[in-house]
């Protein structure tokens, strides 16, 4: 089958559009996740969107809305409990354990489609519906606008929080705003690659980009391009080989990261 035939299917088109939206959001946020050391917070939010999704399934048979609400609640909880830097990781860990336990319980109460659990955990990009695309589009726009507005102060606060605070930047509020943006991005990304594979789009492209350039604007652009390429290639490979897209996306991302790191070590 040729690429042309592949692009004819509406579910493939849906997957590619949804994948592109998610990739752009993730690529945009990724470098900030790394400079702010929020990788673990991403992970916590992602796994807890699982709990949200399970709750959504039980209450209204709607995993997407549940995941959205769940990740925002979690971002707020992380912001509240993890005030001091040193305690942040253990606070996230504690919330994580509880939330997942609650998710298991909720999933036990759900008697619908039995693949629901693995779909939330590992994503099911070919199952994206028209409604979900609209929701994704709305969230993506919100994230884009918020990031454009906050870009400069957020960059300042991420790179040097102390100086930023001294210059009158509201560092604390920015941190919470960033967590909320992150929660939105995570909730939509989870739909595509699943809660467990989110790092491949939210952390690895940013890490690879920061290996190549230290200039903020350029690293953002690179990171967006990386995540877009990984997503589309991964989707195509998944379609032609009939294996999960998540595997290909994570492998491409990891391979690219290793290559770039290896090339940098050689160049030195």
């Amino acid at each position: 089958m040729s690429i042309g035939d592949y692009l004819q299917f509406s579910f493939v088109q849906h997957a590619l559009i949804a994948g592109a939206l998610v990739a752009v959001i993730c690529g945009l946020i990724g470098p900030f996740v790394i400079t702010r050391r929020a990788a673990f917070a991403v992970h916590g939010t992602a796994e807890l969107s699982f709990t949200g999704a399970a709750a959504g399934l039980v209450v209204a048979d709607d995993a997407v809305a549940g995941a959205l609400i769940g990740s925002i609640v979690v971002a707020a909880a992380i912001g509240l409990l993890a005030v001091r830097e040193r305690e942040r990781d253990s606070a996230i860990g504690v919330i994580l354990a509880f939330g997942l336990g609650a998710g298991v319980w909720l999933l036990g109460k759900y008697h619908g489609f039995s693949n629901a659990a693995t779909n939330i955990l590992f994503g099911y990009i070919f199952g994206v519906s028209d409604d979900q695309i609209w929701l994704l589009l709305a969230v993506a726009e919100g994230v884009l606008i918020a990031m454009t507005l906050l870009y400069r102060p957020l960059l300042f606060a991420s790179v040097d929080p102390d100086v930023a605070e001294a210059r009158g930047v509201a560092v604390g509020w920015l941190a919470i705003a960033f967590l909320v943006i992150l929660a939105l991005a995570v909730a939509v990304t989870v739909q595509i690659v699943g809660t467990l594979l989110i790092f491949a789009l939210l952390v690895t492209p940013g890490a690879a980009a920061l290996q190549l350039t230290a200039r903020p604007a350029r690293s953002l652009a690179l990171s967006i391009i990386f995540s877009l390429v990984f997503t589309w290639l991964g989707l195509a490979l998944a379609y032609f080989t009939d294996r999960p897209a998540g595997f290909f996306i994570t492998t491409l991302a990891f391979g690219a990261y290793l290559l770039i790191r290896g090339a940098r070590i050689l160049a030195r």
Partner: protein
Amino acid sequence: MIQALQGMLALDFMRNAFVAGSFIALSAGLVGYFVVLRNQVFTADALGHTAFTGGMGGLIAGLDLLVGVFASCIAVALAIGTLGGRGRGRDVAVGTVFAWVLGLGVLFLSIYTTSFSTANGFAGVNVLFGSILSLHPVQVLVASLAAAFTLLATVAVARPLLFMSLDPDVARARGVPTAMLGAAFMVLVAVTVAEAVQAVGALLIFALLVTPAATAQSMSSRPWLGMVLSAFIALAIVWAGLVLAYFIAYPASFFITTLAFALYLGSQFVLRLRSRT
């Protein structure tokens, strides 16, 4: 009440759960104390997820799930221990490796469910969420032995480990082999994770590894007392969770994680009240 408890303990699967659960809880509580102290929560989490991939890989290779879980956890722990720097570099390295390992896990799950006619569709879910009430005698034995080993090993290295966790530079100057000890500790964490995964699952491991330790650290700043507290909090949570799961038909892991979280919140609340006065 006493009769009901006797009835519970007369059941084989409940006894198995109590034996394995107790060993796992004590060792996870103790090892977890150092995990939190050394700020390696994220690494421990990555190990938990590795267990999933390892378990699935073991099943595909025709080995036992347990073999895969233990082998993969120890291998990844060694990789992180040798590659791992500190701070931001470590976060990124762990996150990146971790995403790929999980991606592999998804591939294994898909191979396993499509190409093995005898495949148990719940194997994946069991690794992720644990099944303490359906442990086999062999699993009980392996988990208990592994837990006893990690417990003893951690006690044996507790003094230098504590020293180097609190002040790595001074410890190195005083002749503590910090790099080797750090790697050895990662292996201990890996074994703890691998054994605990069977009971509480790859995703819920934190309830035993991190929550009791975080609670203990907010209750007491004295390290030795904290370690003992952490181990016994974990034990109490597991026992209470099992009893509750016996009487109320919800998953034991739900009760365990919820009790752990409630205790943590309580200790944080008390801590904040105290620091205000």
